[in-house]
């Protein structure tokens, strides 16, 4: 079974992002970039499936500017077998990403697409569900437990009420949550080896996908702030304030 893993290049999770003064977006110049953490977990899971003999090949995909090849090299260094870079300088929104991935699925015929439940930049949490819908495939979202069986799979999904267990047919789209696994670090020999692994380059046009943004981001602002309050010296003072000043207990 071939597994496709879409990976997104995003601002590193440890960077405190800054809103541009002109309201046009978030400053990404000279900011450290990294693989979307949820996608890293998806890639790790795919590699483990291969190590267990469940998957035969792991193919990483990234959509975006030239620098996305770095993110793909990271995926290859972790253990993916080859990479596909869909090169575009333009902004690509979730529905267009899903369409590009659908076109690649049709070429590659994987048994499973494993991807992050959301990207930590736009926080949309849409692409996996959209891809599954467009393909008419089952979807297992927010997965923290995954078992592949003959022609089907079982997943534990992290839902608001706890864990929901579903069974679904393969091929399918699985989006992963934080607790599925802990991604490995790439070793130096594997980083060197990754440089020689194949990376194909395509464009959205070659895949016949129109990526014109459908949503317009008119303005990006600083979120409304919250004033720091007071420090109190004792529990008695705190309870008095909560009771009399704030009136919440």
């Amino acid at each position: 079974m071939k597994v496709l893993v879409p990976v997104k290049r995003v601002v590193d999770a440890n960077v405190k992002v800054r809103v541009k003064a002109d309201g046009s977006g978030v400053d990404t110049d000279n900011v450290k970039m990294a693989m979307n953490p949820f996608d890293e977990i998806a890639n790790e899971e795919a590699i483990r499936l291969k190590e267990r003999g469940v998957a035969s090949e792991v193919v990483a995909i990234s959509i975006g500017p030239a620098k996305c090849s770095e993110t793909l090299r990271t995926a290859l260094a972790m253990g993916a077998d080859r990479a596909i870079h869909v090169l575009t300088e333009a902004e690509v929104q979730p529905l267009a990403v899903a369409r590009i991935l659908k076109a690649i699925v049709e070429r590659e015929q994987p048994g499973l697409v494993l991807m992050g439940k959301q990207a930590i930049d736009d926080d949309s949490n849409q692409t996996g569900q959209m891809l599954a819908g467009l393909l008419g495939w089952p979807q297992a979202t927010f997965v923290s437990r995954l078992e592949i069986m003959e022609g089907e799979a079982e997943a534990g999904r992290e839902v608001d009420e706890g864990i929901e267990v579903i069974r679904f047919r393969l091929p399918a789209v699985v989006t992963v949550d934080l607790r599925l696994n802990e991604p490995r670090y790439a070793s130096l020999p594997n980083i060197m080896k990754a440089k020689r692994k194949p990376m194909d380059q395509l464009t959205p046009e070659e895949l016949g996908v129109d990526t014109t943004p459908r949503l317009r981001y008119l303005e990006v602002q600083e979120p409304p702030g919250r004033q720091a309050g007071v420090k109190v010296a004792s529990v008695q003072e705190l309870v008095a304030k909560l009771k009399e000043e704030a009136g919440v207990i």
Partner: protein
Amino acid sequence: MAVLVLAQHDNRVLDPAVLHVVTAARQLREEVDLLVAGRDAGEVAKAAAAVAGVRRVLHAEHEAYADPVAEDLTPLLLRLMEGYDYLLAAATTFGKNVLPRVAALLDSAQISDIVEVLGPDRFKRYIYAGNALATVESADDKRVLTVRTTAFEAAPAEGGAAEIVAVEPAEPTGLARFLRREVHRSERPELTSARIVVSGGRGIGSAENFRILEELADVLGAAIGASRAAVDAGFAPNDWQVGQTGKIVAPELYLAVGISGAIQHLAGMKDSKVIVAINKDEEAPIFQVADYGIVGDLFKIVPELTEEIRRARAA
């Protein structure tokens, strides 16, 4: 045209999240209809019809809707959406799972987790884990939106008199099925709708130590939450997690105990009315958003606070 709201429920009770979505929906159109797809969900349909501001309740019954998977709700929603120009659901794991699948097949670019309706085509939503607030415009004929429930008041649960219309279910796809739910049983209020939330972070130190928070929560009648650090460390189950990747809460009182205040946690609770922080590190970022802070050892402060509140309550 009108708004269709996908209602979330457990076949017995209408989820309170729906009331908040109705408020957002009414800011878009006068005509707001609710879809109740369930099994033996007549009581839910009745409750939905009583919500103020609802025009009509579409009630679809099928065995497959007892615990419906997105694959089986999608064909039903696609058929019904012929008569609507908006599809809304709460930005809960239920809504987040179903709506994008429908949106893609409607050729609509969904807008997730809206916190404000600026006009028929303009919305505000947070990006970058709450570090930036974006104004987004959609040019689609049919708009699909998930709604952050804490950003909209609840519509009154009573006072409406909507008609209930039975609609044909869609044929199940057989692609996926629900097996079971592993729920952490609790007598406490539900995290996202609780009036008071007591949350613990990495500073709590162990799963056993959460016991002291439980005692505090008990005297306050509060729900218990946790930071991602505490959940990742195995101190608390994941469904207690408050933050960008967990639950978004906005109670009247939020007590953050041993929580440093990582951005992603703040994103999940900073709209709380009153925030109290208890932390031994006076430089912890949580104090920058707290109305009241105490610097000190939480293992001394929390039991003392529990006792003091018990006394204040008794007085």
